């Protein structure tokens, strides 16, 4: 079984010979460490947008001072501006509301755009942002995905990327959590109108995804149950996920959603979604939902791509190996699981992380034993 087949089967909860593992965002870079990891079976995951975006009736003005970039969007409904700066580590891109937020190739260790001032600051900003969303023209472009898939071969999996769901986009990319909270309570009408406009535009993106050759569609949510209450999730996220999971299923595709936060308070509701896989699932000590709890509440409904919590690496190689053994034991027999790195790893710890994950996973044949003395 090659790496691609193993990963695809794991994402669809099919048969695998051993637990697949991934370096989702290229933390191992390229070179010796990465080569050794690949030799130990590590796979690659690449994602590509399936469309190009234009805002034909919006003009963009950019200024830079003291390393801070101010981008102003002029629309017939007024102007809005955002500020961002390039820095290391994972950040949030300052793209346009209905455009491609992430540029392939960016990400640690490359500098990444961090928003330091959001587009929506006042209720008066909604109209211009809504215009930008509605003005966006999405043109399908499947070539990038096809070329990447050819280049990747059997070394990993390709994902088609869509945007964050509207609520996630609003609080992470458009307004920040403080404005999100205040406007949710104080200006619900404007808030809901913008959310619906984003969903209407997303609908075009999902339809493009449905017609694409991609087998897996990636929803880059960054869901966290401390920010998103069960009430908000049930009202906004759940119907959105189910609507588009259903559309993808009709086209023979599966959906994986990036849920890297604390999920305990949302676990029951997540279990009601029709998505197929959860990626970047982060167990304690960083997350708050253990593998055992996830298994109990979801009963194998989702394939789980588990992020090995990076804070464990900081406790040294011995503790990392102990945690790894415990992790493998907890996912036994192991069907429908992937393990890997989906968050920033301090650069000096990457060789150790790869060594521990690789040595444990290259022989992690399924069915795994739940015996810790593996």
């Amino acid at each position, binding site marked *: 079984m090659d790496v691609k087949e193993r990963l695809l089967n794991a994402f669809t909860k099919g048969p695998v010979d051993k637990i697949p593992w991934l370096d989702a965002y290229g933390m191992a870079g390229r070179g010796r460490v990465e080569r050794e990891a690949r030799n130990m079976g590590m796979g690659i995951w690449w994602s590509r947008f399936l469309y190009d975006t234009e805002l034909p009736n919006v003009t963009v003005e950019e200024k830079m001072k003291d390393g801070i970039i101010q981008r102003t969007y002029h629309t017939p409904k007024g102007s809005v501006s955002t500020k961002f700066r390039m*820095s*290391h*580590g*994972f*950040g949030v891109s300052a793209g346009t509301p209905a455009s491609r937020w992430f540029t392939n190739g960016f990400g*640690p260790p490359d500098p990444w755009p*961090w928003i*330091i001032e959001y587009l929506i600051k006042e209720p008066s900003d909604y109209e211009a942002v809504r215009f930008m969303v509605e003005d966006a023209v999405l043109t399908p472009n499947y070539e990038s995905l096809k070329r990447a898939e050819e280049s990747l071969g059997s070394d990993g999996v390709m994902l088609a990327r869509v945007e964050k769901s509207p609520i996630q986009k609003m609080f992470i990319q458009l307004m920040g*959590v*403080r404005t*999100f*909270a*205040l406007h*949710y*309570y104080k200006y619900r009408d404007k808030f809901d109108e913008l959310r619906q406009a984003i969903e209407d535009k997303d609908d075009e993106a999902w339809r493009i995804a449905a017609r694409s050759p991609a087998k897996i569609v990636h929803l880059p949510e960054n869901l966290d*149950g*401390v*920010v*998103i*209450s069960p009430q*908000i999730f049930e009202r906004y996220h759940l119907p959105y996920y189910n609507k588009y999971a259903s559309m993808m299923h009709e086209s023979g595709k599966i959906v994986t959603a990036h849920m890297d*936060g*604390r999920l*305990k*308070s949302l676990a029951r509701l997540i279990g009601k979604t029709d998505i197929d896989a959860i990626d970047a699932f982060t167990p304690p*000590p*960083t997350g708050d939902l253990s593998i055992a709890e996830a298994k109990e509440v979801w009963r194998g409904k989702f394939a789980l791509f588990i992020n090995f*919590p*990076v*804070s464990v*690496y*900081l*406790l040294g190689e011995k503790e990392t190996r102990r945690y790894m053994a415990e992790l493998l034991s907890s996912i036994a027999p192991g069907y429908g699981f992937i393990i890997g790195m989906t*968050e*920033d*790893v*301090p*650069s000096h710890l990457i060789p150790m992380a790869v060594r521990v994950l690789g040595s444990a996973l290259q022989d992690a044949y399924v069915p795994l034993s739940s015996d810790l003395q593996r």
Partner: protein
Amino acid sequence: MKSKDQILAEVRDRLVDLDSEAVKTACREALEAAVPPLEVVTRGLARGMEVVGERFERREYFLPELIMAGEVMREGLGVVEPHLTGSETQSGPMVVIGTVRGDMHDIGKGVVALLLRALGFQVRDLGFDVPAERFLEAVKEGGVRILAMSALLTATMPEMERVVDWLEKEGLRDRVKVIIGGAPITKAFGESIGVDYATNDAVEGVNVCKKWAAE
């Protein structure tokens, strides 16, 4: 006629309901009933924020509710503050707080700052991507009881150790309690770098600061 306790409970409960208009009305009624303004703050508004914090800890309230409660408290304070005397506006112990260099995730740090302010702490928020030197300068300026640092990116956690080392080298370590927080923070990491407390829970961190303030 309502008793003082009932009037203050009204202030507290309307804040817990996140109803800013009702809180302002309750604060005005409290003042009209000759309830001491400081008690309106401490036993009404601040107590309401404590209840909100408790609900947040029990995951009955979430970040939007916590932030909205902070806004409601601010509006209530706008009614009461003009009636406080000079000495009553003096705040409690000073906390310097910031997200360490290289990290721009400041949601958790903002929550802690919000709750500490509501409890009467003086909070000097240095923001995010704060270099070790700025933490050190803030402590050197004096009057700081607690230094609080946060990180979400594991890659930036070693910066916390740098700050602690610098405090030691400058002979400032004994002047302040040091607390660190953030989703990837573990007690073991905190012990390994020599801080006084480490937590990945905002409310737990605030409770520890309250305990230190009472010592």
